């Protein structure tokens, strides 16, 4: 069984936010105006969270890049009254934008707050529309959205591999955030395929998952920073 997953090495993450911006560019995520951002309405499917401790000069920080965890047991999908969020048989948790009624129940059910809501419709000027990625739909106002593991890339990679009559390789399907990371802190692949690096990395003694005790079984692993 294919189970797509991610391993993020916290030791390598410098909090540069390239992953955040790469995700926005790949997935047509609009910005919100300043007053909205101040209210906490900006959208960032990948969000670098900072665990900050201590005062000058003893301050320490660990950066946690946080996509959707694509939980194997996702609390978000059960609560959706219309099945607009679902998990597919490869473990990717997706959203059906045209079906979402915008009740935000899933957003409240997600312990990682990985879901984002379109409080208004996205704003793109005429010229900015030229840089929208045609592979990804622009979400209308009033619906929930979140990291999709760049699922459209999987579809493309599959098609390409099929067209070339070969097996799809690990390198064929890599999300935008993974590709952009300058320190290669993020690894992506099939957790169940021993050939893929993530399969090995998730067994690393440093590997952990967020809020493991909740039983959500995230498919995003973190390698704890070495002290």
């Amino acid at each position, binding site marked *: 069984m294919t189970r797509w997953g991610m391993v993020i090495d916290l030791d390598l993450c410098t909090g540069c936010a390239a992953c955040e911006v790469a995700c926005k560019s790949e997935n047509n995520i609009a910005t919100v105006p300043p007053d*909205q951002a101040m*209210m*906490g*309405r900006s959208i960032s499917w990948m969000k670098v*969270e*900072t*665990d*900050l401790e201590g005062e000058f000069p003893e301050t320490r920080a660990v950066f*946690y890049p946080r996509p959707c965890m694509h939980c194997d047991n996702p*609390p978000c999908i*059960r*609560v*959706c*009254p*219309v*099945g*607009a969020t679902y998990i597919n048989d490869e473990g990717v948790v997706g959203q059906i934008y045209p*079906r*979402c*009624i*915008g*009740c*935000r*129940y899933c*957003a*409240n*059910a997600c*312990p*990682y*707050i990985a879901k*984002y*809501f*379109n*409080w*208004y*419709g996205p704003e793109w000027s005429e010229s900015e529309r030229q840089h929208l990625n045609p592979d990804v739909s622009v979400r209308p*106002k*009033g*619906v*929930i959205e979140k990291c999709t593991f760049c699922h459209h890339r999987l579809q493309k990679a599959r098609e390409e591999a099929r067209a070339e009559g070969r097996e799809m390789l690990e390198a064929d399907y890599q999300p935008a955030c993974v590709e952009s990371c300058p320190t290669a802190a993020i690894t992506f692949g099939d957790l169940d395929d021993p050939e893929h690096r993530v399969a090995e990395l998730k067994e690393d003694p440093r590997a952990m998952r*967020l*809020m493991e005790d*909740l039983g*959500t079984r995230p498919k995003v692993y973190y390698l704890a920073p070495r002290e």
Partner: protein
Amino acid sequence: MRRDAAAILADMPPDERVLLRPLLETSRGFRVTATLLAAVTVWGVVAYYLQVRYGLGRTGLNRPGYWGIYIISFVFFIGISHAGTLISAILRVSKAEWRRSITRSAELITVLVIGFGAIQPIVDLGRPDRVLTVILHAQMLSPLLWDVISIGLYFTACTVYLYVPMLPDLALIRDSGIKYPRLYTFLAAGYRDTPAQRARLERVIGVLSIVVIPIAISVHTVIGWIFAMTLRPMWHSTIFGPYFVMGAIYSGIAAILVAMVVLRKAYGLQEYFKDIHFDYLGRLLLVFSLLWFYFTFAEYLTAFYGGEPAEMRAFWAKISGPFAVPFWTMVAGCFFVPLALMSRRSTRTPRGTFVAGIAVMVGMWLERFNIVVPTSVNPRWEIESVGRYLPSWIELSIMAATFSGFILVYMLATKFIPIVSIWEIKEGREESVHLVADRVAGYLPGHPAQPERADP
């Protein structure tokens, strides 16, 4: 026509005369109040239009404060709805004779308030245009869907439960011809108050009052589960089902009391809403204030004792953090004020219960607030920044409109149906006095156990 009706009314027996008068006479105060309420309601409708037009962004909601006023109002109003039906059903089943004059006004609250409560989640939707998707793509694992079903059932049951016992009164109005004969002919649905019909009516009421109890309990249990089924701190709690039901009944009693005081004053119903009613309901309120304290204490103690960090953040946010004011106001409103007022006979008066009722309603609204907002804005992951939620004027307007709309429709309803059940009062006067005497006698030693009047 009008003079005729007044003349007819003047010729009627005293109960009818008093109880039907509001159907014919409308005071200036009523008109002014209704106009004001209508204005507020229209204002709220405009606010909602703006929200639909421009998006939910017009609210103060955000991430992680995903839910706010609308969900609070939803829980609150559906809670109030336990006023009527549930209480009147329990009183009917337990044959509490003092219920006769209060059931109608209580049941009316229920039906209206379910309607006003049930639209709240729709107001809260990002895409109200897609609301039918809930039926087309029903996903039965979602507690929201359980709610859609139980509220739907509840609304139907309550409407029937309001309507059926109203039939004899509707027939009375029809027969008296004091108002819109065709409307009342239609509403009375051929009810002639023959003994057979009356017997069937009583049987239906008996069945309904039993059926409606589990439905009512399920409704608020499921609403509690909406929160409890998530893994969020201070939501994920098994006590939420019963806690919500208890709170609902509590706020329902408070609502009845307030409504009764107002009706009594407005329509001169001192003879029907007697001090004894306030005394009894006041005692009930007292019991519930103690129950409320018990549940709340149990809920917070378990959270506190466990000391789970995420729970504690939400906990302290309420106890001493940014939500301390709403929290302690809630405790005052739901516990101290009613306890103080209702534990003494001298304040279990209409005026005393009115104050206590208002305090409990405010307290219970705040309880919903304290459940929804602090958890919503306190992410489980401590490194996520804590959110802030301030409702926008759109949300406040819609909330105000919900209150005003409800009161307005309630007021208007009193112009079409007698707010005290005339036939039940009459029945009480004519039969129950003896029946009760016999029944009480039957409880006593030395008398053969009187067979209960089997429902005919």
